[in-house]
């Protein structure tokens, strides 16, 4: 039994992701909960972080929550409205790229933090086809830190991806470097149950934090691969201040947090 918490799973996920963002970070954001996490970080712990969209808008004034990375809401009061070739160059270029942290979603993740946003089943004749890489593969290839936002389910935390869209640690150990990629890819996985990170040497995912009311066993039950949980501790729950700012300043209409 999970005892009732004074916050919803979406709220704790958003706060956990926001805590990953440091002051001065450039946050590559998608829409939905990832954008809310970027906004929460800016309002709570990283006031000088900058929200950045792959479409080319930098530091937009988000008076309304955008529903797409091409939403006209991101074009208002931006420092600059540029274009795709510029925005990806900003991430591929180490000078600015080192400061970028990305928040990504995926249909599947494996033990090495590789992501699938392309399909379920055979690539050429899939059972389910998804939208595809977009800028996901690019940012996971380029920048040192990425947060994966996932629902923690066995069918999503899989032994083998149906398609490797966005590179994490590839086969683990040195394989990312051997493939020619710089250090980077998914560095934290934030789910509705806990926060996972990656061992520096093996490149394998381990459980870092489980949420109050959740056990490591429950997390293992919802993960297809075997994961080290020996270092896991309980996460500090969202504080009253964090929740107040998230609810009152970031999503007062609960467009993303829901009712």
């Amino acid at each position, binding site marked *: 039994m999970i005892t009732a918490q004074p916050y919803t799973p979406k709220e704790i996920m958003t706060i956990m992701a926001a805590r990953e963002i440091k002051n001065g970070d450039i946050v590559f954001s998608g829409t939905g909960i990832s954008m809310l996490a970027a906004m929460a970080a800016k309002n709570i712990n990283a006031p000088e972080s900058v929200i950045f969209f792959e479409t080319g808008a930098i530091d937009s004034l988000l*008076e*309304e929550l955008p529903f797409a990375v091409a939403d*006209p809401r991101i074009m208002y009061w931006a420092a600059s409205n540029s*274009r*795709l070739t510029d925005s*990806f160059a900003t991430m591929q270029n180490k000078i600015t790229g080192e400061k970028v942290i990305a928040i990504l979603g995926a249909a599947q993740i494996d033990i090495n933090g590789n992501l699938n946003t392309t399909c379920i089943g055979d690539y050429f004749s899939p059972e389910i086809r998804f939208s595809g890489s977009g*800028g996901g593969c690019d940012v996971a290839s380029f920048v040192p830190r990425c947060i994966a936002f996932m629902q923690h389910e066995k069918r999503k935390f899989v032994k083998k991806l149906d398609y490797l*869209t966005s590179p994490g640690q590839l086969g683990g150990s040195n394989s990312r470097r051997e493939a020619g990629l*710089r250090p980077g890819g998914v560095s934290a996985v934030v789910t509705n149950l806990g926060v996972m990170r990656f061992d520096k040497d093996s490149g394998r995912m381990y459980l870092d934090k489980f949420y109050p009311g959740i056990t490591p066993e429950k997390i293992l039950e919802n993960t297809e691969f075997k994961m080290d949980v020996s270092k896991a501790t309980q996460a500090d729950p969202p504080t009253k201040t964090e929740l107040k700012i998230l609810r009152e300043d970031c999503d007062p209409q609960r467009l993303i947090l829901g009712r």
Partner: protein
Amino acid sequence: MTNHLNKVMPLKQAIEQYVKNGSHISIGGFTLNRNPMAAVYEIIRQNIKDLHLYAHSNGTGLDELIGAGCISKLEIAYAGNGKAAPTCIRFARSIQNNEILFEDYSNYMMSLRFMAGAMGVPFLPTLSGLGSDILTKWGFSRSMRKSDPKIADKKLAVIDNPFGDWAEASKVVLVPAINPDITIIHVQKADAMGTCSIKGLSFADIEQVKASKNVIVTCEKLVKKEELRQNPDLNQIPFIHVSAVCHVPMGGYPTAVYGHYDYDSKYLRKFAIAAKDQNKNQDKFKKYQDKYIYGVKDHEAFLAIVGQKRIDAIKADPRTGYSVNMKRD
């Protein structure tokens, strides 16, 4: 491409002249923003088939074209249409049912491919995608690549950095240039010669235009040359790249055009619901297409059916460039 002073023509004529069965095509915009929708609907009405579409992130236009059976080959990074369809519905179905040939790239790769085409070089390098299935899974066979002069012999190539480990890279991915037969974009302002001024994000429109053999521009406002020449810094596309200019107010509808109107989330949802039609005879989807595409003679007639009420609801606020507090479902 000509440099004559007046390239203005009706959209119907421009599509007839420049978009043919089998054309390699790209359309401007990004997911639900600044798609050249009037042109997309005209292509569908003219029943042009077997198109080869190049896309970074496409949405509304792509899914209407696939839904109408206009596309047989697709090179793409992303197909989504905002909240209404996080994955484009007809796109997904056409792949699941093996109805089109397709190949996946990333957004940066596709943008670089257009840029390479615009630059006149055979490829550009990137560090994106090393170790991913984007490198290993090819949608077009080698024999098909060999037989079609418009398709590069390889999807992409990985080489060792010829400069050693200069710039801290041991390997690079080379992505081949794209030179579409035709690119169609929708912009806020153009003049009769084809010079364009885009407001807000330009996505990859500039590279797409400059890579293309022919370019059709549709515009919200057809303005005098003097108006654009007073502020050349605001013009992203000079007339030398443009073949035809078509004045089509609300030509991006139902996608957003910054400073003019928002996306119509109600319409996009209506399209998504129709596109989800699972019925074998496709009654619902056909009804949608008959009403909004085949049953109207042009974009103006389409907008008349949509109605003034929707058009007023999405009108952009002059301060922010979008429709403030618009109900978005």
